[in-house]
Each structure stands twice: as C-alpha cells, then as structure tokens.
C-alpha cells in the first residue's frame, strides 16, 4: 500500500496545534510509517505539493493566507482545519472588534507599516470555511493530541469525522448543587474576577462560586483540562452548534443564573464571550468593515 501524501500549511496562528501533534511522541513514528510528509514548515520543500490530506492551522488574516488556503484546497483531496483559529477564527479574531486601519495604527503608531513583500491584512479575520470547503474541522486551542490523531486517522482512511456535540459540562467533573435546585435566586451573590477570590473550590462548579465559566457555551472534546486544573473554561472549542454564537448564548444562558449586573461589569464581557469565536458570530466584525466578498 502506498503511503498517504500529507501536507501541513500554517496560516495566521501560533503553531501551537503543531506542538499538540508532536505531543503524540512515539505515536508520531507510527504515523510516519503510513504517511509521507510532502509539504510542511518542517520539510525543505518550498512549493505546495499535490497530496491526499492537508492539515491547515491558523486563521485567514492576510492576503497571503487566502492564496495559500486556496492552493491547499486545490492540491489536496481532503482538507482538515486544525485548531480554533482554523475552525472559528480563534483568539486573533478579536481584532475584528476594530477596523483594519485602526489595528495597523495601533501596532505601528505614526510610522508607516513596512510594505515591501508583506501581504496586506484582510479586512477581518476569517475561519477557513469562509474561503474554502473544509472536510474535517478539529477545534481546540490547541486540540487535544488524541483528538487530532483520531481526526487525522479518519482523514487518511477517507472516513468522515464528526466533532462531539454536547457542551463541555458533560466532561467536567465538578459538582453542582445550587444549579440543580429550583430557585428564584442567583447561584452566587456576585460575579468575581478570577484573581479576586482568595480560594477557589477545586471540586465545585465555577458558576456556583460566582466565576464566569464558558463551559455551558462550549463544545466538549477538550477533556475538561482547564477546569481540572482549577481554571474556568475559556471556550476554546467554540460553540456546540456553529449557528449558536458563544457570546450571545453566554448572555442567554448566564443572565438568569448569575447577577446580570455583575456580568455587565466584567472587565471584558465581549472578550470573554467571543474570545475564540468572534469571526463565526452573527456580526463577525464591527459593521463599518462590512460583510462583502472582499476579504
């Protein structure tokens, strides 16, 4: 049997998903027996090659990303979007809260942005699916190594791979008490910042301790690693259904559970609700940036 030709393209992202893949350790060796890595930041080849499967990580943030993504789609039979940037636009998508010019001047101030050879920024950060058809989506920042391998196995075998659909609470082992009880009261008297509390009960649901946890609004599949480490979910897997935007659903779900006034005065309500999924929300950017085809 001939080896599967695998390519790996990195767009606007941090390459953390790559590290998650490398975390497979010896499993990588097994993987390499069945694949031939034809194009990747790790191999010398500088031209995108025809291949069976391409892994694309990062979001579409520059004109170059658009071209590289279209080329990847053209040359690969199966395109796998890896990580929250690729699937949801990711954390960099928060730049969509500002106009492109505003972002550039925030970075370069009065200096002119160096132009030579640098691709222009897109009007807004976009997930891959805004530009091309994506066959398999693997969200997560970064995706769990096992999840990534299982999606890759499916892609190599030519099988479909579905994201799990329930919310993160399914995986979280924390205990709920107040949330399970019928009451007109909120589960906590106030909403706290993570650093405001001297102690955080490691066994009890964060919401009941007055801490904003994005777990309910977030797709399972991460293994609840953050909540196990006593850190509330930040929502990196994105919403369970892509038509249910995380920020609006945070408003819907938590307004009757925690004091809405307290949520309102969070340091960064928008950054909390849309941290990873701004570019797949109903309004993926400030409206002045428009919604036209020009990326």
């Amino acid at each position, binding site marked *: 049997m001939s080896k599967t030709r695998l390519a790996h393209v990195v767009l606007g992202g941090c390459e953390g998903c790559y590290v998650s893949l490398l975390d497979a350790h010896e499993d990588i060796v097994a993987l390499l027996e069945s694949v031939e890595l034809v194009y990747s930041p790790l191999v010398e080849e500088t031209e995108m090659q025809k291949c069976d499967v391409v892994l694309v990580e990062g979001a579409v943030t520059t004109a170059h990303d658009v071209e590289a993504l279209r080329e990847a789609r053209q040359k690969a039979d199966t395109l796998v979007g890896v990580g929250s940037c690729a699937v949801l636009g990711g954390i960099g998508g928060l730049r969509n809260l500002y106009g492109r010019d505003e972002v550039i001047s925030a970075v370069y101030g009065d200096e002119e942005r160096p132009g030579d050879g640098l691709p222009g920024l897109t009007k807004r950060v976009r997930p891959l699916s805004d530009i091309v058809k994506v066959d398999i989506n693997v969200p997560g920042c970064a995706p769990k190594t096992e999840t990534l391998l299982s999606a890759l196995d499916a892609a190599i075998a030519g099988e479909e791979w579905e994201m799990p659909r329930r919310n993160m609470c399914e995986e979280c082992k924390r205990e709920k008490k107040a949330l399970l009880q019928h009451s007109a009261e909120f589960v906590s008297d106030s909403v706290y910042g993570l650093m405001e509390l001297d102690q955080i009960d490691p066994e009890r649901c964060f919401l009941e301790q007055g801490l904003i946890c994005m777990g309910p609004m977030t797709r399972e599949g991460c293994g609840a690693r953050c909540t196990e480490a006593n850190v509330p979910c930040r929502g990196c897997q994105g919403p369970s259904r892509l038509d249910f935007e995380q920020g609006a659903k945070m408003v*819907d779900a938590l307004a*009757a*559970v925690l004091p809405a006034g307290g949520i309102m005065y969070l340091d960064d*309500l928008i950054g909390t609700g849309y941290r990873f999924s701004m570019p797949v929300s109903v309004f993926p950017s*400030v409206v002045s940036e*428009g919604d036209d085809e020009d990326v």
Partner: protein
Amino acid sequence: MRHMPLGLYVSRCNGQVDKVVDVEAAAAAAGERAEVVRVVDDLFEPAVADRIVRDIGDAELDSVVLAGNSADHYLKSLSGDHLRSRLVFAGLNPNKIVTANILEQVALAHPDDPAGATNKARSIINVACIRAELGEFREGIESEPKRAVLVLGATTEGIVSAQRLLQLGFSVIVADRGAGTSRVAETDSMRATVSYVMGHPAAEFVDHASLVDGQGWVGDYEITLASAAGTATYRVGGMLLADPTDAEWVEELRGHFKVDVDDEGRARSIDPRTHPAETVDPGIMVVPAYAEEGNVKDKIAAADSAAIALVLKLSKPVSVHYRDTSDVDETLCGGCSTCVRTCAFGACYIADDGLSHVDVRRCRGCGKCVVSCPVGARDIVNSPHDYLIEAVRSLAEAETEQEKVIGFLCGGCGYPAGDNAADVVASTGKTYPASFLPVRIPCGGRLDALYVLEAFKSGFDGVAVFRCREGHCHNLIGNVDMDRRINLLRTVLRSRGLDDGRLRVVDISPFEGERFVEQVNDLYESLAGSTSQEKGGPQ
C-alpha cells in the same frame, strides 16, 4: 424532508380585510408551498369549515394556515374555538393549525395604506406558512377531567359556586385564608346555601389555608394546600378563584400556573368585556370583581357565571393536554443545568442520565429554558427556534417604503396590546407604519439574543420588544430575565459599532393599544433621527 401539503385560507373577514388589503395578492405569498389556496368571506361560517374539512380529506392536507383574525381570537370566540376543534377532529394536529393575523394588526391597523398593508399581509402569511411547515407534531396527553373543583375563598361567591358544582355532581374543596366558613355562615341571606354546602358529603373545607404547590392542567391539577392541620394534596379538574379581592391566592397560584394580573395584583380574565370569568389557564376561573360589597345579587350572578364556565370545561369526556416542549436532544445536552435554574416553575431537572428533562405537569411553555440552553438541546413546540430565525429572515425581505422594524410581541401582553391597537386606530385615526412587522413569541423570556442579532443582520432598522409590565408576566419573571439578557446584549451590539438605541423594549398591558401605537411611532421618530452610518447589516 417529506412533502407536507399545506392549505391556505385567507379571510376577507366580511369586508374588513379586503377593504384595505388586496387579498388575492396576499394569498399569493403561499406560492407553491400550498396545495390548496382559497379566499373566503368568513372563516367561521359553517360552510367554510365544511370546505376546509373536505380539503383536508381530498388533498391530504397536513397543515393549514388560517389568515384573518388574531390567534388570540381563537381563545376568546366560541366560533373560533369550534373551527379549531373541527379541524383537529378532521385529523390535523393542533400545532399544524397556524393563524396569520391580517385583520387586527394589518387591515384594521393600516386603513390608509393599502399597498403597505398588502405587503405586510403577504409577509405575515408567508411567516405563518413557514411556521406550519416547521412546527412539529405535538403529542397529546389525554385524561378524563376530574369532577372535583378547588374553590379558593369561602366568600359568598365561593359558597354559591360550590353549591352549584355540588348540585351538578362535582366534589368541592373550599379553601379559605382565614376562618372563612364561620364568617360566611354569619351572613343571614346565605344561611340555607351555607348549610347545604357544609352538610354535603362531597364538600370539604380547609380553613387558614395557603397554596404551597401546584401542577397539571385543566381537567387534572394536583394542588397542595397547607393549613393548621398540615399539608394535603388534592387532585381537581379545575379551580375557582372566589375571592377577587384577595391577592395572596393569586400570588401563590402564579408560582405554578399562568395567571394574568392587574395593577392591584388581582387575577384578570382574558377579556373583561366578553369573557369575565375565564383566565389564560383554561382550568382556572375567576369570579369577576364587579360586584360591590353587600350587593349579594350581583355576587351570585358572578358566581353562577364562573361555575358554569368551569363546568363547560370539565364536562368533556376527555381533555387533551399538548406538551409545549420537545424532548431533550441527547446528542446535544451536556447537563450544564442553566435551564434548571432559569425555569421559574421548577419544571426542568437533571435526571440520573445526567441530561435535562422537563416535568410536563409543571411546564408552562414559556420557552425560557430553550433560550437559556446554550446548545439548543430543547425546543418549544409552538415557536421553535428554526421557525423564529426563519421568520426574522423572511420578514426582513418584506417590501416596505419606510424603515423596517421587527416587533417581538409577547403572547401575554405585547401581542394583545397590538390587537387592541386596532380599536385605537379606529377611534382616534392615529396609525403606525405598515413596515412594523410583528412576530408573536410565547413570552418575553422566549426572546433569544440570537433573534435580535439576526434581525439587525438581516437588515431591520429597528427592533422592538413589547413585553408585560413588571410583576405582570404570566411566567412570573420571563420579562425580567428578558431585560437581563437585553441589557447584556446591548454591550454586544455596541461592540460591533451598532447603535443599541435601535433596540427598544416596551412594557405594556394587554389593553394598552394606545401606548402600543405611541411607542411604535416614537421608535420610528428616533430611527429617523439616527444616521444611516450607524446602521448595521449589509450596507
């Protein structure tokens, strides 16, 4: 998706609609979706009902859209109720009978704007067709109505209605907040009636009582009363509020059932002019409070009217309750429990399987749990999520001359206020723009932040939400929860550079048609003041 033949029946409402609306053009909104399209003079004529029933058989219709009167008309008019019953008997599922209000909120609201009214009628009929297509079959729960009635308040009215009910073979529990029985027995003119009731083997008295729990529906309620003797649970077919001045019973009832209240916290009937005893919960009657203290004759008449209204409900051989929520989607629910804490009636619970379930006997169908569910694991059968999103999108495509505003009207107050605005238009001549497009939602608490975002996204210039005044929500705090959500949503809108002044929340009572007209016009004025730069959606 299997083919679902649809029938559209557009009523001229005996000249009231076609005086303004081009009904043929409005009927064309159904397009190819409808197997049968008919324009009729009056939906409530027996011959028209016969025709629809024949069509259901001949064309194998599985849903019908009745365009004409408001949906609320079918709750209040015997002929409307009768038409619905006939269609159900002919084999239609109640959730597949959809009304399109082209009378009160179109023809009567915009008498001077035939073109605008016709476009609005088209849009509303189109949305009703979408609703007919997307509404799922509702499962009916059948039971034999219990021939027992709980009378709340051992007042003159309470004793008289108890006596009528006992004579008709019902058993009666008379509960009073104080020592009601001894108090009433002192009334000279009532002595014979009181002795009849007190001596009746099928009558039971509970003094110093309060209502601590309740569940179920017309024909089959389960009510727990607490008194000096402890707590006891009663199964009754209906309830009769016989102390119209006592707000405490109402307050306790509201914790478990839908009850409309007035400013004094008293129970209000669905329409004091035509249905003085019936409340929004079909098994709960209220003795009208128009009798003056000491006017025994009027009190007896009021008690008679309430008792007979209840007897009519409980004399059916079978009563059917249609559940309001869908089953939980097990592939989506992760057991986050936000719905449990959101439900004001304690109907949501997490079962041993770790998933959220609904106690249908406690569910009042407000939809708050559906909105609070971050994954969409549950839906409201009569206003499902997919329908509301589609309704927003399709209304956005309406042809209008003025700015387009979508009005989310809660079934408790906003929607009836919109219907009542028709009277105001007729009497004062004050109208509001036909580009105001209404969508009925069961409760303010059913308003998902997603619908508001979708409305602005689809190109609406303004979004109005009409919901119950504070303390008046049928679902206790649906309006409060909606406000909490809307306030947070304003931050979301502003983060995208959208002017949140284009989103207006109006508190209103069901009979405040004038305020409805004023508020719509006021919103239009403020929209005209904002520049197009601030508008969202496709530019």
